[in-house]
């Protein structure tokens, strides 16, 4: 029962060593100051122990130099921790371009994953070693948090918005996947495994899965089934904005404001269409909240995204090109 208990977690992603680096530094500082204080307390307690009942201590009121010393030195040490920690964090939440994307939906009490090739998994996640993987995550119900200790990655999964996390696995193997944000009765059952595979094995796994629609293809089917197509047509007389060439571009709204058509915008436009009305269109779209699940929302977004790579017909072009820059993916 007590076999195989570790005292330090495995390092299985490129980020693990980064996080552990700051950790080791702060741990050294912690150990140094804790031992210093403890040693001084013990030393003073012994050396200056009361010798007779009426003895009093020396009269010392303070020292400005010492106060400065033990204000400035700790301040500089903490600033090293601050800068180093912020740098690691910055990298951890900036996915590189070209990362492999996977959609994750958290719900009480399971993790659902959907690969771009259409493979779906529950409480398992297969990823190849040596390649950056970006997860786009939404929640069906309450707060969750996606946590892989061996990768040192974590991000809260929040209903109504998408959070992104990314990692590059380095070592094939099976690693714990935990929900870290308390989410109700079976919170501790919302766990699974991340299986890191050699790239070749991963390709075989992708091919070996049962054939399923890619999220974009599933989204296209939904688009027809939910009769979105009636209004979001390809012609200039359409009652709703043109979706071709929309994704990733700037949209001009009623009243002159603009917004970048990213995942959050598309999602909002489906569940709360009245929130942002595209310039030149009437607020006639009904809400689809409660009619589509989080997974279906992700599929619809994947479809709209796939349309973004196509050029819109010249007659109906509500979108203007987005300015280049480090916009949020």
């Amino acid at each position, binding site marked *: 029962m*007590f076999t*195989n208990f*570790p*005292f330090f977690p495995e390092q299985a992603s490129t980020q693990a060593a*980064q*996080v552990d680096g*700051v*950790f080791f530094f*702060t*741990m050294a500082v*912690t150990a140094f*100051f*804790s031992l210093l*204080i*403890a040693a*001084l*307390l013990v030393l*003073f*307690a012994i050396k*200056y*122990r*009361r*010798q007779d009942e009426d*003895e*009093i*201590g*020396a*009269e*010392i*009121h*303070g*020292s400005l130099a*010492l*106060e400065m010393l033990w204000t400035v030195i*700790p301040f500089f040490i*903490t600033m090293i*921790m601050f800068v180093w*920690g*912020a740098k*690691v*964090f*910055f990298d951890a*939440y900036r996915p590189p371009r070209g990362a492999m994307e996977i959609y994750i939906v958290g719900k009480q009490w399971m993790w659902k994953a959907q690969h771009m090739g259409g493979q779906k998994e529950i409480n398992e996640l297969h990823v190849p070693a040596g390649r950056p993987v970006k997860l786009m995550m939404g929640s069906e119900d*309450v*707060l969750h948090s996606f946590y892989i200790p061996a990768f*040192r*990655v974590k*991000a*809260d999964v*929040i*209903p*109504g*918005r998408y959070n992104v996390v990314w990692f590059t696995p380095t070592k094939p193997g099976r690693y*714990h996947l935990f929900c*870290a*944000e*308390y989410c*109700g009765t079976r*919170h*501790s059952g919302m766990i699974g495994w991340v299986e890191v595979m050699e790239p070749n094995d991963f390709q075989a796994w992708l091919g070996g899965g049962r054939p399923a629609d890619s999220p974009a293809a599933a989204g296209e089917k939904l688009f027809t089934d939910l009769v979105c197509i009636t209004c979001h047509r390809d012609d200039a007389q359409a009652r709703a904005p043109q979706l071709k060439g929309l994704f990733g571009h700037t949209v001009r709204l009623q009243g002159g404001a603009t917004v970048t058509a990213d995942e959050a915008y598309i999602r909002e436009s489906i569940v709360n269409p009245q929130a942002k009305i595209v310039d030149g269109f009437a607020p006639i779209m009904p809400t689809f909240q409660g009619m589509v699940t989080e997974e279906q929302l992700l599929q619809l977004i994947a479809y709209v995204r796939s349309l973004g790579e196509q050029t819109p017909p010249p007659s109906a072009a509500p979108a203007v090109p987005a300015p280049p820059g480090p916009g949020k993916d």
Partner: protein
Amino acid sequence: METVNYLNNGHGLKSWLLTKDHKRIALLYLVSITAFFVIGGFFAMLVRLELLTPAGDLLSSETYNKMFTMHGVVMVFFFLIPSIPAVLGNFLIPIMVGAKDLAFPRINLLSWYIYVLGGIFTLVAALSGGVDTGWTFYTPYSTAAANGHVITAALGVFITGFSSILTGLNFIVTIHKMRAPGLTWFRLPLFVWSHYATSLIMILGTPVIAITVLLVAAERGLHLGIFDPALGGDPVLFQHLFWFYSHPAVYIMILPAMGVISEIVQAFSRKNIFGYSFVAFSSLAIAIIGFLVWGHHIFVAGQSVYAGMVFSFLSFVVAIPSAIKVFNWTATIYRGSVSLESPMLYAFGFIGLFTIGGLTGLMLAAMGIDIHVHDTYFVVAHFHYIMVGGAIMGYLGGLHYWWPKISGRRYSEPWAKFSALMIFVGFNLTFFPQFIAGYLGMPRRYHAYPPEFQVLNVASTLGASILAVGYVIPLVYFAYSLVAGEKSVNDPWGARGLEWEIPSPPPTENFTVSPIVTEGTHQYMHGNQEVGLA
């Protein structure tokens, strides 16, 4: 014949329940927070027993979740927050400023009744089925999904908040307006400074948590869309509002304990504090900067990276005044006349454990480390080092130090030393393994867990058992001292301060002649110089 003091001046239940004497109200608090400590401790024992084995086999998941929720709610809102201010602060602040009572004695009694009313709401919630939201009441779980009596528990927290606000108000007015002649701000005991800073947080922070839990109740009961995205709300808004109070609330718990430690370190080194003004102002700095760090609880909730950096920076800055205090306490002991009686043992325990708790707090403030350890047992270990290793050690140290004054009796010193040692050992065995479990990745609030974490959890449960015994022993010898303890003289420790110049236990009006103060406390070179006392 016994002289008249606050304890024998009036008998019967009514003389206690309708008292306006700050010392008697302090004892009303002492009894009620001890009751809540026992209740909260009972919940903690069930949590620890469940975690002896990896499988969730002792309690059902729902019951387990209710246990850690009730443990947190009871310990935070009904024990830790009132503990030192409402008991020791209530008893000592009027005496330390040379006054007959607090500025508003009736309001002081009212705040105890409000506290009891809030406590009743929470106990009703616990007994009628419990709550399983976690003490943090995170939305939308608490408003849309949670089991149990969320509204009742939220109202309990809402109500008891007013008790905090009124106590803080009373302290601030008393410290401003009722200081004895000659008692300038820089002659005040550091205990009073720390309570002044605490009171500022109570007054400025508590209304925010009160409104926040009321909004939770409104969304759950009336379906107003505030936090639940399904109703058009924003769940992360709740986290901002909640931590805007609840992070400063940590300082409500630790600042008074720091004040206690400053007094004990001086008394048992027979030496005035090293760097008085630095220790005094560091309390205010903690209170002020502490209001600006709440965002470090939501680094991984999708908060802007730049906002995160500001919160991270300020979280490091708020650590500096705490470090200043630790260095000054240590320097105070240097060339003192050190006596390791039980209050000093607690003070040593506090300084060591608070140092570890504070430094591991720096790890959590470093955003890169927080990614990994956020919401794991590392956080649980860290805040227990602050709240149990810090606040409760300080509370117990203060209780031992001032017990002869409060009760007029001496407790058994050998037993006190023994239990202080047990608490120190039990505490470390309980919570140190949780740092390791947390860095390994064990998430908090897990009813069942993977088997590789079991060794650490068994150690933790063993430690908790030792800790529990360590907490029971003082209950016994304090109670025993009331009936059979040796009578205490005015100043049993040879300490300096207004409270040690009046009889033990003090008379109802504290001072028969209003004191005139000519210097600060703990000036051992000069003897007693507070003149005007009989």
